């Protein structure tokens, strides 16, 4: 029996595990390590209308149980992504979630209109939360009025469901979630990275050339869990959860918080085989906890009608 299959708007997932955008490129490198067919979906690297080189190096810095990155949305641009990167992923029976980014609303609209026509792109992830670009990105993700506007504009042109990626760098995450839901979002993905900094001991200057970067990894997991817990009770659209997932146990915790699927990001750098490992471990863990299907875990932390699972054990 399949204990892991999940249906979400536009997405027929054989399991709820997918690599997070920006941590998996366009799948080429990881495709040399294992069969990508086993993944639930793939969230590919952010695509902007024009090619972007990104920020100067150093672009990464390690932190306690986490890392800072300031890549700066490096990507080959819409035309090349559509011509080279997405067709290469066609060989896999895996839905692609295309992450789209830009500096102005028109950029998002341009990318959404074109990329949503590609046959293996089953959903869009609207990146209004990248902390590492000077214009656009996070400025769209911290103002509910602007976030709703860009969501509406993208929904108007997209041929596939639109998930909006929320930034944790806000005071009221529920307000942001409700704004994009009102804008027509089909789902949410959360959380993006938390803005942070580190300094070099000898020079006293920032380690990252961009000065600030986005914090990811297990250090941010409690923040993600808390935000998903709050948002999932306040909206009626599904959440793909992310933020520091390293193990199958972490996945279950995200589901308890209210997620319906999850993305694994930074953990791919520590262990490039982490996604296959989690997919293999999940059914065993679910059985141990007394569940028949992973969907039984969603929202367990706040759903007062949910029974204790392990009564069956």
């Amino acid at each position, binding site marked *: 029996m399949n204990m892991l299959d999940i249906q979400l708007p536009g997405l027929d997932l054989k399991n709820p595990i997918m690599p997070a955008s*920006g*941590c*998996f*490129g366009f799948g*080429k*490198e*990881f495709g*040399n*390590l294992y069969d990508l067919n086993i993944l639930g979906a793939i969230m590919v*690297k952010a695509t902007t209308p024009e*090619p*972007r*080189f*990104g920020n100067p*190096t*150093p*672009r*990464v*810095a*390690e932190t*306690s*149980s*986490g*890392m800072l*990155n300031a*890549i700066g949305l*490096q990507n*080959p*641009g819409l035309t090349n992504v559509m011509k080279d990167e997405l067709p290469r992923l066609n060989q896999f029976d895996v839905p692609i979630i295309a992450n789209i980014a830009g500096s102005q609303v028109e950029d998002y609209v341009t990318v959404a209109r074109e990329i949503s026509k590609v046959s293996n792109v089953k959903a869009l992830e609207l990146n209004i939360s990248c902390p590492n670009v000077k214009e656009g990105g996070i400025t769209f993700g911290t103002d509910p009025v602007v976030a709703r506007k860009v969501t509406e504009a993208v929904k108007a042109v997209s041929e596939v469901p639109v998930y909006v990626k929320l930034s944790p760098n806000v005071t009221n995450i529920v307000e942001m979630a409700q704004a994009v839901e009102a804008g027509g979002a089909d789902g949410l993905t959360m959380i993006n990275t938390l803005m942070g900094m580190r300094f070099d001991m000898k020079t006293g200057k920032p380690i990252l050339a961009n000065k600030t970067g986005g914090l990811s*990894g*297990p250090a941010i997991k409690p923040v993600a869990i808390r935000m998903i817990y709050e948002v999932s009770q306040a909206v009626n659209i599904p959440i793909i959860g992310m933020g520091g997932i*390293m193990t199958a146990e972490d996945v279950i915790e995200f589901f308890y918080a209210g997620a319906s699927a999850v993305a694994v990001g*930074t953990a*791919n*750098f*520590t*262990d*490039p*085989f982490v996604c296959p490992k989690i997919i293999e471990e999940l059914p065993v863990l679910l059985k141990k906890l007394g569940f028949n299907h992973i969907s039984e875990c969603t929202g367990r932390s706040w759903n007062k009608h949910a029974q204790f699972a392990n009564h069956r054990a």
Partner: protein
Amino acid sequence: MIKNEAMKIVSQQEIAESIYELTLSGSLVSEMNQPGQFVHIKTGNGYEPLLRRPISISAIDKENNTFTMVYRAEGKGTFLLSQAKNDTEIDVLGPLGNGFTPEVAISGETALLVGGGIGVPPLYELSKRLTKLGVNVIHVLGFQNAATVFYEEKFRALGETYITTVDGSHGTKGFVTDVIDILSNSYTTIFACGPTPMLRALESAYKETKEVFLSLEERMGCGIGACFACVCHTADDPTGFQYKKVCSDGPVFRAGEVVL
């Protein structure tokens, strides 16, 4: 092929101040074919440090299924690694990257190998390969001071070797370039690994007249080319969108290929 293996520590010793020589055994060695490649090492258990550490391969011994690295214990990760005891296991991902191609040097000719500090180790396997091919090797190896010099005798056993130290406490006082400037111009190929200013100096001085190959260093995330942490501009498009990834396109590049 890139593999992930828990490899056993055969030996680990401090061979100079904060410089450690670590030999591991395991089947992953059978995948190692090129000098100048590196491995990505998980230096601790649990989430700290979270990221792997890229460390270059300094010697490959296929007969005994072992390989050796020489690294400096400088930060938290490499310090932890230096504390690992014999017969315990280390999580290794590799081999990674494109290393040096010794075959570009022709038998009977002379190659100049230039190393700076912790850039010296990968030149050792390269030098062994070159001498096996019948190439004469000259080594110019730069260090901070006498306490941090390592592998001097090992390199000397393979060919002519010059040591420089910044403070003059061993060998010639100054930088590797001070020695190279007064060397006879008998070599046709230069292989180098070390700090970027050193690579830049070699590139600008010899790019036009010699075959020059440089091994770059950069902070890395994944080590396999997926995260875009270690990119550099290409020389023919220095401010544009063309790029190379140090981890998977490099770390060795022909001089003039990328912007240093």
